[in-house]
């Protein structure tokens, strides 16, 4: 199962004509099946841009992105990926169940099949009794779990998450981290996860990709050799701390030209 390339990014550069910003310069990155890769770096270093390029939501100025052996555009057409944003992006006029079922509707699943899958997903994110509620009747953490359930509902090969827990409090965030890991292991999907939190990146990932800004580049990659399943105790292991320090050093070393407040934000 492992070893197959899910994402191949080859010398991708992205410049935005507006303001002549080079958001990404010469990015090379390969993700194999079942990997959990975090992108971390100071604000504006191009993490979201890289995620969008992978998902074919914007086109790179140069270079190629291949997803499951296909150009990204075709992969998008084939519904190869699910996306989760920092805010849950739920539709207020749809119930929780209908929000989760939206991609299935677009895929043309029939009602019975849809209902069965939506019920499974509700169980998976522990919202079994909230299917008929509306998004605005849920807490922020519950809404985010709905949006994760929606992204997973059609079993995309690739899950793209842009700071999905960024707006949540620390406790909810740690709980959802554990939930996300167990879901990821159950479904054996591949995840690209953008975060600002070093500890979150280390705790979740098989690999952490550290990026540096102006222009956005990959500053280094840290393999996280902590065993799965990771638990609350993982956060207390010496190896965990060593890896956190390694990522932090990498961020600091490549961040000489960071603004002081950016540096402060990264060292928590």
């Amino acid at each position, binding site marked *: 199962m492992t070893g197959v390339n899910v994402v191949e990014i080859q010398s991708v550069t992205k410049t935005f004509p507006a303001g002549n910003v080079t958001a990404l310069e010469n990015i090379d990155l390969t993700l194999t099946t079942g990997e959990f890769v975090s992108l971390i770096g100071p604000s504006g270093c191009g993490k979201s841009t890289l995620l969008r390029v992978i998902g074919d939501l914007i086109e790179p100025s140069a270079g190629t992105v291949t997803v499951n052996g296909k150009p990204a555009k075709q992969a998008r057409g084939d519904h190869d990926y699910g996306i989760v944003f920092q*805010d849950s992006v739920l539709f207020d*006029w749809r119930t929780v169940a209908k929000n989760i079922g939206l991609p299935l509707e677009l895929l043309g699943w029939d009602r019975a099949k849809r209902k069965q899958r939506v019920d499974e997903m509700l169980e998976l994110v522990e919202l079994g009794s909230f299917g008929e509620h509306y998004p605005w009747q849920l807490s922020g953490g519950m809404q985010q779990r709905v949006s994760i359930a929606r992204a997973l509902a059609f079993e995309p090969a690739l899950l793209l998450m842009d700071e999905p827990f960024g707006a949540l409090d620390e406790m909810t965030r740690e709980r959802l981290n554990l939930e996300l890991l167990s879901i990821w292991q159950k479904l054996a999907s591949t995840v690209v996860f953008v975060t600002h939190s070093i500890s979150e990146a280390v705790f979740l990932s098989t690999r952490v990709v550290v990026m540096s800004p102006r222009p956005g580049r990959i500053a280094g990659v840290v393999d996280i050799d902590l065993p799965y399943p990771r638990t609350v105790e993982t956060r207390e292991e010496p190896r965990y701390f060593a890896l956190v320090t390694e990522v932090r050093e990498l961020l600091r070393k490549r961040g000489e030209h960071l603004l002081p407040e950016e540096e402060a934000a990264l060292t928590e």
Partner: protein
Amino acid sequence: MSSYTITPGSVGRQAREWVPAIAVFVLAIAVWQGAIAAFHIQQFLLPKPTAIVSAFWDQRHTLWPAGWYTFKEALGGFALGSLGGIAAATLIGRFRALGNALMPIAIAANAIPIIAFAPIFNAWFDPLSPNSKMAIAGVLCFFPVMVNTLRGLTSVSPRQIELMRSYAASDLTIWRRVRFPTALPFIFTALKVASVLAMIGAVVGEYFGGSYDALGVLIRSKAQILDFQTAWAGILVASLLGIALYLAVALTERAVVRWAPENRPS
């Protein structure tokens, strides 16, 4: 277990919310009636509410058919203008260039007192047929509905569009599933405005000439022969029908746009 079931408690609460408004209304009528008696105000300046109500009752067999005739004009104009407004906004929202060319004109047109064109419309269409009144009511409704619908269609969050694109959804699907539902609260706000404008358009259009069956013509001719009670009774009919149309739209809104913050059950 729907969260929208109306409990007896909520009906009671709604009824109680109306109490102050009803009290003020009754008080205003009483002051009106009392002031006329106290200051000997002349009938043609302001008839007593009781006199208006008695005219309203005595002439109900001419007033209500006239009101119905005018109401149908207003309704026709409302439907045409609103549908036209929504259709135009959809086109403009879809084709940016069209919007860039038309929006400034539309906003300028929206600021024109369109009702001033009523005599012109009577000349363009047959002044005695309902068409000319429907046209003026329709044009009155068109602009606010178009401008608001367009605002609604374009106020969709970019994230929602990105999400839909990640599902490879077509523009049509995005319109149907995201843009239109997002625009609905805006559309209903405009429709409520339009429902009032439609009745105004039809009645004022009739002031400049129309069939003898029409309410506006009746109000004007009664005022000319100094039968002010009946003129006021006609205005009362126009008001009641205008309010009825407004309420119909507002109730439809509550049934359709149940997710809007103001319609959420607390």
